[in-house]
């Protein structure tokens, strides 16, 4: 195969500095990007629809935005928000710890541990959260005292269960039991995603078993655990709206209770709740981004840029492009 002689000549013989020559050689020309009118039309349609939606949201009297403003930072709503945050935070941590233990049991060599873990996960993924909460709330009807001691042997401490189990404890225990079952699967998946060679290398170096897990396997597993667990965390934030079943008023419950006293404000109250949940989810997502970025170190050659870095790159790219086009 021979190349067309003309092209070969102009490509190879073009002097690099000949930018102001009347007819530029092919190599010095900027490649013109393909125009995409379809994409522009789709963008315009979406923008119009979005504007219409926002306009409706703002102007429709049904939403009563003035009442939204009144309720958004009311102490009763903020108290509810605090309950939501508190219950979520405790349950997220305890759920993850429980999930790690369950995942380790699930991956252990002992068939008993494996079976117990499997049954736990199976049970708590099957039972609706509401039922768990109802059972726990009324636990005192079944067991009046809880005691800590040798199994079937003497008790060291005995608790009056109804005194011990304040509403928030019941809510946290219920959500954690549930959360642990889901977290276990996320953790197990994460551990399995770690290359077998890592386990072998850690073993070959004689690293103690606990060290192997804490410093070698788990940090790598966290990379795939994080997105899964954050998903569950967002579910958890919203699952806290069920805690009124244990006589606890979270964000949603507070709004519901106020909606009964002020029935004209039900819609703005629901909007208040929606906006707060949006804020919570946003915060969790931002944290997720940075956590994932942290665990990505070493896994990729360069870290994904932060939004700020992206913005900076975009601006400097644009500047470069303008400069280039001015020069050409």
């Amino acid at each position: 195969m021979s190349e067309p002689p003309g092209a070969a000549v102009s490509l190879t013989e073009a002097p690099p500095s000949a930018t102001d020559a009347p007819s530029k050689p092919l190599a010095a020309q900027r490649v013109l990007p393909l125009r995409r009118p379809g994409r522009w039309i789709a963008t315009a349609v979406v923008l119009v629809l979005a504007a219409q939606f926002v306009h409706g949201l703002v102007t429709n009297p049904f939403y009563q935005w003035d009442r939204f403003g009144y309720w958004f930072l009311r102490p009763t709503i903020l108290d509810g928000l605090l309950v939501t945050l508190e219950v979520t935070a405790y349950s997220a941590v305890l759920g993850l710890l429980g999930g790690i233990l369950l995942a380790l049991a699930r991956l252990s060599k002992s068939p008993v541990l494996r079976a117990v873990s499997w049954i736990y996960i199976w049970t708590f993924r099957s039972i609706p959260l509401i039922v768990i909460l109802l059972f726990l709330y009324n636990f005192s009807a079944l067991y009046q005292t809880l005691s800590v001691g040798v199994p079937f042997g003497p008790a060291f401490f005995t608790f009056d269960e109804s005194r011990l189990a304040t509403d928030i404890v019941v809510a946290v225990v219920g959500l954690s039991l549930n959360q642990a079952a889901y977290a276990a699967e996320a953790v197990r998946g994460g551990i399995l995603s770690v290359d077998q060679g890592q386990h072998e290398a850690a073993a070959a170096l004689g690293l103690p078993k606990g060290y192997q897990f804490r410093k070698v396997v788990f940090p790598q597993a966290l990379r795939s655990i994080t997105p899964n667990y954050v998903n569950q965390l967002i579910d958890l934030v919203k699952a806290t709206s069920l805690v009124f079943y244990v006589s606890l008023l979270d964000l949603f419950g507070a709004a519901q209770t106020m909606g009964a006293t002020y029935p004209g404000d039900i819609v703005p109250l629901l909007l208040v709740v929606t906006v707060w949940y949006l804020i919570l989810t946003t915060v969790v997502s931002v944290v997720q981004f940075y956590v994932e970025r942290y665990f990505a170190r070493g896994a990729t050659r360069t870290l994904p840029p932060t939004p700020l870095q992206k913005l900076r790159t975009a601006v400097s790219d644009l500047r470069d492009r303008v400069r280039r086009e001015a020069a050409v």
Partner: protein
Amino acid sequence: MRTHLTRRSLIRGLTAATAVATLATGLAACGGDSDAATRTDDAAGTVTVGRLSNGAATETELKVSEVKSISALLPADIKKSGKLVIGSGTLPSGAPPLGFVGSDQKTLTGSEIDLARLVSAVLGLKPEVQRSTWENLFIGLDSGKVDVAFSNVTDTEERKQKYEFASYRKDDLAFEVKKDNTWNFDNNYENLAGKTVSVGNGTNQEKILLEWKAKLAKEGKKLTVKYFQETNSLYLALNSGKIDAYFGPSPNLSYHTTQTAKTPQATRIAGQFSGAGETLQGLIAATAKKDSGLAKPLAAAINHLIDNGQYAKWLKAWNLSGEAVAKSEVNPPGLPLTNS
């Protein structure tokens, strides 16, 4: 003794085997107090009713003191504890004006709560109100978490199998529809044909409505019954036309109608009905666990309040004078098991 031992060892095994105890012990210190927590009463001897009612009541001060002859009727353990744990099944939404969070947006108030406080004062007990969901109210009575429910509970023969009652108010039910809806109940269930009506799950009015539904079905007519977890979503459905009417306790419906009168979601009352069926006046009653021995002192305390006129003042404060009863009875006849 034998069962006691077995249960204790069972509990010990359970403790060691599950994470529940560990988690619970670890968290015992971080439990905050919730809205359902204890509400202490006003200065000794004075009970203020109709507080923070958001316009549903006129605040009225009543002087009440312990009546020894009545408090002597109390079961020993309650007398010894010095407090009366009162259940209010009003979570998550309140049920104004019967039991709801008041206009300070944090205190539980309501006519039922006020009567409970009056009764506690007569009995010389400190009232302690616990808020829960409607279902948990009854489980709370069963488990002993709660001594007595003042929560618009209707006395029915079915409930009598597990609970004992001291009646204090007429049980009037009503239909609520959108303001522009011209439909009326007119004391005739046949008017419900073709309608979609919502009712509280597990309530007395549900029983009544379901029987009408069965009757209509026999005549080849259809009544659709819809349930909502709580009243806010129910009212959203009423406004959007998903349901035609709400069949519920008359005081609640009146409150809602008054409160929303000037809003786009205005409603009106479209007929009333007795909570015990066509032949019997339904009664609302203080509810305690069966054989707890509480119904008798409760009824005596309520009758004391009726006799000294404070009962009437309480009802008047809450604009519920139409629901007054002549006297409190222990376990009066209620909605029959089969209301045919």
